[in-house]
């Protein structure tokens, strides 16, 4: 596989370490305080793929929003490479291109061509001129096997291709962290499997920290170095699993004995939380 040669094993990334310390988030809709995140602590090493698994609506996205700067936290602290993003004193972090989000339903701008979507970040930040950004975008899209769709609009390509373009758009900014919010939720399982391999290939080439939210345990164990299984609302890690299957991985892993063992080890914990979430009748979110 091309990926195996691209990335020397064990070369550690030096940036993108996230530290979530004792974070609490209380929503206060109409006076009824709802605890979404309960004293949650989690360490993500630089260059690690950390998968956050939990039932729908458990508060995983709240954590992501706190890191990205879309929402405030109530108390606690989140740091990126030692720098404080948000804390009790400064409840909301400032969104920035060092932490780019790939959204659940996709957020490519439908009114811009795929190429201009990818070129968007550096142009907005004034880092590159429009022409330079387009050139870089062209070569990054070609690297990701996305040649041929540059001048189409997002609405004209398949959802799988759209997701890949969105990831390339994020990588254009050389981010420290990629925040993925169930990006493959709406895809069929066949496309999903292609997307997983594509994501890994991109990861092996640009070693960037990945914070990946999902409710699919197999996806989590297949992709992640670390899998954090979260409790149902309020959300905090119930079990943190280190996946000892070596990278680079490909789809052969899915049928390996170790993979099956890991699934068995964690399945019960995930199921328990899913039942709890179901019984409490939380709205999906």
């Amino acid at each position: 596989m091309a990926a195996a040669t691209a990335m020397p094993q064990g070369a550690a990334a030096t940036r993108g370490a996230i530290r979530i310390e004792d974070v609490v988030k209380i929503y206060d809709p109409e006076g009824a305080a709802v605890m979404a995140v309960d004293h949650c602590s989690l360490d993500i090493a630089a260059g690690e793929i950390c998968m956050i698994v939990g039932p729908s609506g458990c508060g995983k996205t709240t954590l992501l929003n706190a890191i990205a700067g879309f929402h405030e936290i109530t108390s606690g602290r989140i740091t990126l490479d030692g720098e404080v993003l948000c804390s009790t004193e400064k409840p909301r972090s400032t969104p920035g291109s060092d932490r780019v989000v790939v959204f659940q339903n996709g957020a490519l701008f439908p009114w811009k061509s795929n190429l201009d979507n990818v070129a968007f970040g550096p142009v907005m930040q004034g880092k590159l001129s429009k022409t330079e950004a387009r050139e870089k975008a062209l070569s990054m899209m070609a690297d990701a096997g996305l040649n041929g769709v540059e001048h189409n609009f997002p609405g004209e390509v398949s959802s799988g291709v759209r997701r890949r373009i969105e990831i390339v758009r994020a990588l254009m900014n050389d981010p420290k962290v990629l925040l993925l919010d169930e990006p493959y939720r709406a895809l069929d399982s066949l496309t999903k499997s292609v997307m997983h391999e594509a994501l890994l290939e991109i990861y092996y080439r640009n070693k960037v920290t990945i914070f990946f939210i999902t409710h699919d345990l197999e996806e989590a164990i297949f992709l992640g170095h670390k899998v954090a299984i979260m409790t149902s609302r309020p959300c905090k890690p119930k079990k943190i699993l280190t996946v000892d299957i070596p990278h680079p991985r490909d789809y052969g892993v899915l049928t390996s004995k170790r993979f099956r063992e890991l699934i068995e080890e964690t399945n019960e914990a995930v199921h328990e939380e899913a039942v709890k979430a179901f019984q409490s009748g939380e709205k999906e979110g």
Partner: protein
Amino acid sequence: MPTPEKQPMSPEVMLGILKATMPFQVVSEALLRKIAAIGWKESYRAGQTLYEAGGPAEDLFIVVSGKIDHELQPGVNARRPMKTLVEGDVFGWAALLEKVPNRLAKAVCTEDALIIRINGEELLKVLGSDPDAGDVVMSRFATMITRDYTVPDLFAQLRGIHRKMHARDPQGMNVTLYRLTRWLKSPRPYLMFIGLSIFFGSWYLAVEVFKLPRFREMPGITTVVIEWLNPNPVFGLSLYSEEYYKHIAVSIWRVTQAFLLATALGVPLGLFLGWSKGVKDYVFPIFELLRPIPILAWVPIAIVMFVATESAVIFLTFLASFFATALNTMLGVESIDESYVRAANCLGASKSQVFFHVIVPGSLPFVFTGLQISVGVSWFSLVAAEMVSGQYGLGYVINTSYTMIRYPTIIIGMITLGAVGYVTSAMVRVAGDYMMQWRVRELALGSR
């Protein structure tokens, strides 16, 4: 590499070979003959390279005999890049892909081989001559590329093939022309014609044949048409009178001024109402208070406020348009998915960049809906205003013809209003399509 000579091949033989290939299997005899006419035969010896990855991709190949090794380059992401091609296999399909001018693979003969070669551009032209069959061929190419060559995600490029085959990448006015020809091929214009005939037929029957009592004073359609086409009109207004065009021009000019003013003020106001909570809290209640007041209720105030009748008429025409435009623009901003704004923030866009790159283009579909409504209501209020005051204009024509008992002229004025109103509204639609190519294309694919 030495290029082998083009050798002729009997069309019958070529036809048989084409018919046995995956993409051309289902094509009609007639179209196959056209394809066979542009193909030629070449022979290669074992070890010869047909093409290298990165070379220009112009022709499509079909194996007649022999064996060829086909290796896709890594960038294509094929699950299994290596493939041995034998009789009946089709390769070199990069020649058909849009925006891929270069070979994606290397092809080497491992045995002496005979191949059929067809120029990609010419093939697309032939397929374009029968787009329905061409679509089938292209989708079979798609299946072949994903299944036999294990290339994932060519979906988007194949869409490109479809468009290339239709020999147009619709842009601007071309989209409109394309739609027009499609419209003419659909049953819709003919149903429309039948509908209109029934309408005018019933008018004719009700007034002139059955002479129904309700329509006693109503001018018949023949009276109206005769008057309209009369060089010396009985009541002074027909296609031949200068006055007629003056009325039309005056009305159009008033609507244009009012519409432009309403757009220039309504769109920015709507954008700010949707964008800033503060602005909305200040302005929206006043807006909602004034909006339901009918235009006719504004007439006395308008006449008192503006000394010149012309300004009063334009003010009245402007009002309703303005509310429709501003309200729809505001809804447009509010309809924008929060994710787009967040994504732009993540990517480092400043507040003003978000406004110009997300809010403005994102609200355009609603803005144009608003403008369509706006142009409609501007005609509506224009006539109301012209009936009250003014010297010229179609509303004035209708009103004075009533007081002077020139009934056919009323109908002429009404029909003219309808036609002119329709044209202006169509112009707004065309402008919208032109500015929102992304939406036109998205919708076109959706309806496929």
